């Protein structure tokens, strides 16, 4: 049956590769091993193995989660030009964006799981088995929309890839509505995550209407960076034809998103510094420190610098079309937004805490190890999915290929 051949072929694709591929897999396995060791320690003594305490209850793990939800949402940045504006150069690579979304959501779910005090009770949030607090709890909404988004992307990606494999047209009836649905859904997952923070009156730093737009802007300007690098890698390593214009257009859209992100940042800073209420304290902690407490200050300014430089690199056509500066921009934008939306959002929101206490948080080695492991898993998932998807997209892996022919075609040069 076609599906069995498909699965067998996938297995073959994943287990065959050149030196670079296996070196990458080995590195990811090491990362996952480190993560497992870290989580084993955390599971045995409890979350006290982290540096989170009552004063700062969300930190590194949830910061990573927030950033990765943005990455997952950003996959949709490809969908809009592809399907709303019918721009062919991007249409061909939309599925890679969906695979990124799947990997990112996987990491999001893992970060939530490692952050929970009682991961053994995760069923409590499942409707029917547990008691999700709809509609009031944003966290239960987040659980729902993230899983729906994951499901939608899985269905679309698998359907497209399998159809290509079977050398038949994918069903527009399934595909187009789901893909179009994924646009508001992507905005939805990130808005729900923003609302999760936004709705907390106890945390003035988060309790700002600007949070949801900022989340969308920073997601769109950072998420696709991984894809831009991936596209270049795939072009060289496989026969996949990805046009320069597709890459440059994505970079251009990211520049506009970054402009909006910086504008919103400016608006936030104006409000805090000009109104100069007691709520300024959280912003000040992040950018200037309070008294001797300055742990985040270097990161705040580094993040801003990275974001500004990346913005300029993507905005100016000459640097956008130069591969060196483009890739530098990708790295810088990921670094900038990773800090700003991860630790830079979560920790200042809780410093000082609700009773005015300043507890300076920095992640422990256990937290670094676990986060490394989660990223390892996410990148492994992405690698495996791309390793399967690319030969399908290039036509090398399809149902009619002879086993030998298929094997030859499926072996990548890298």
């Amino acid at each position: 049956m076609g599906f069995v051949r498909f699965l067998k072929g996938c297995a073959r694709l994943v287990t065959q590769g050149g030196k670079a591929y296996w070196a990458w897999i080995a590195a990811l396995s090491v990362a996952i091993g480190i993560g497992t060791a870290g989580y084993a320690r955390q599971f045995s003594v409890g979350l006290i193995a982290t540096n989170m305490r009552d004063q700062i209850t969300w930190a590194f793990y949830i910061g990573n989660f927030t950033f990765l939800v943005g990455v997952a949402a950003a996959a949709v940045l490809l969908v809009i030009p592809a399907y709303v504006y019918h721009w062919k150069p991007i249409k061909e690579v939309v599925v890679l964006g969906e695979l990124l979304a799947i990997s990112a959501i996987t990491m999001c779910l893992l970060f939530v799981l490692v952050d929970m005090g009682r991961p053994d009770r995760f069923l409590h949030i499942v409707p029917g088995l547990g008691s999700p607090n709809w509609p009031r709890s944003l966290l239960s909404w987040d659980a729902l929309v993230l899983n729906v988004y994951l499901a939608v992307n899985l269905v679309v990606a698998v359907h497209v890839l399998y159809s290509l494999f079977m050398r038949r047209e994918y069903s527009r009836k399934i595909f187009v509505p789901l893909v179009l649905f994924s646009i508001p859904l992507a905005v939805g997952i990130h808005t729900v995550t923003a609302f999760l923070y936004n709705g907390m009156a106890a945390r003035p730093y988060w309790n700002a209407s600007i949070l949801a737009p900022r989340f969308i802007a920073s997601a769109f300007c950072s998420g696709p960076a991984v894809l831009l690098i991936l596209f270049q890698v795939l072009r060289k390593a496989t026969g996949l034809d990805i046009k320069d214009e597709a890459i440059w257009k994505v970079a251009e859209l990211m520049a506009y998103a970054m402009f909006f992100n910086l504008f919103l940042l400016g608006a936030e800073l104006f409000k805090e510094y000009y109104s100069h209420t007691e709520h300024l304290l959280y912003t000040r902690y992040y950018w200037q420190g309070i008294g001797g407490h300055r742990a985040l200050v270097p990161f705040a300014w580094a993040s801003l610098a990275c974001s500004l430089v990346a913005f300029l690199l993507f905005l100016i056509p000459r640097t956008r079309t130069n591969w060196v500066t483009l890739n530098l921009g990708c790295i810088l934008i990921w670094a900038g937004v990773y800090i700003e939306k991860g630790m830079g959002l979560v920790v200042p929101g809780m410093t000082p805490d609700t009773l005015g206490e300043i507890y300076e948080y920095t992640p422990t080695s256990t937290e670094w190890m676990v986060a490394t492991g989660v990223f390892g898993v996410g990148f492994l998932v992405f690698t495996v999915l791309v390793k399967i998807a690319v030969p399908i997209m290039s036509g090398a892996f399809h149902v009619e290929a002879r086993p030998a022919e298929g094997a030859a075609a499926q072996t990548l040069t890298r």
Partner: protein
Amino acid sequence: MRSRAPTSLLALVAALLAAPASGAGPVAKGEPAPAAPASARAEKAGGAPAEELVQAEKPPFTEGIFPCTQCHQGPGDAKRRELAFHDDVQSAFDHDSEHRWCLDCHMNANRDVLHLANGDAVPFTESYRLCGQCHGDKYRDWRVGVHGKRVGMWNGQKTYYLCVNCHNPHSPRFKPLKPEPRPMRPEEMKR
């Protein structure tokens, strides 16, 4: 505020006198409360249920000092002077000491009781009436449980404390206490 303050006070006094013994300690758990006199029940406004009888703690006498008439039989020298016995109390006395001394509260004729400004005798178990002459706002708050401490049942029997159970009448200002240890800082908690 309550205009029937004197009547309710009498009710409280009546209730206290109906207690098993004057100077009885707090009701032991499980013991039924003595029945409130009919006057106390009728006193309550608007048909609200009668408050459970409250029991007071004993006046904090020094061991063996009471009854005072063991030594003081009949009236003594009423002139203000330095004392030989009770000098420990007198040296610590700072309760408006400029204008008052012992016999302004302790009854000269009968040292087993105190006296109000008009000369009425007040037993030690009702010393609050004496305090209340000057400290009216505290007294009114204390009577309804807002001032001072109560233990027991919020919806039933309470033990209240006499003013003197917390405030030394001879030196009433609360002495500072040694605080319990500070909480651990978050960075001090590790595994």
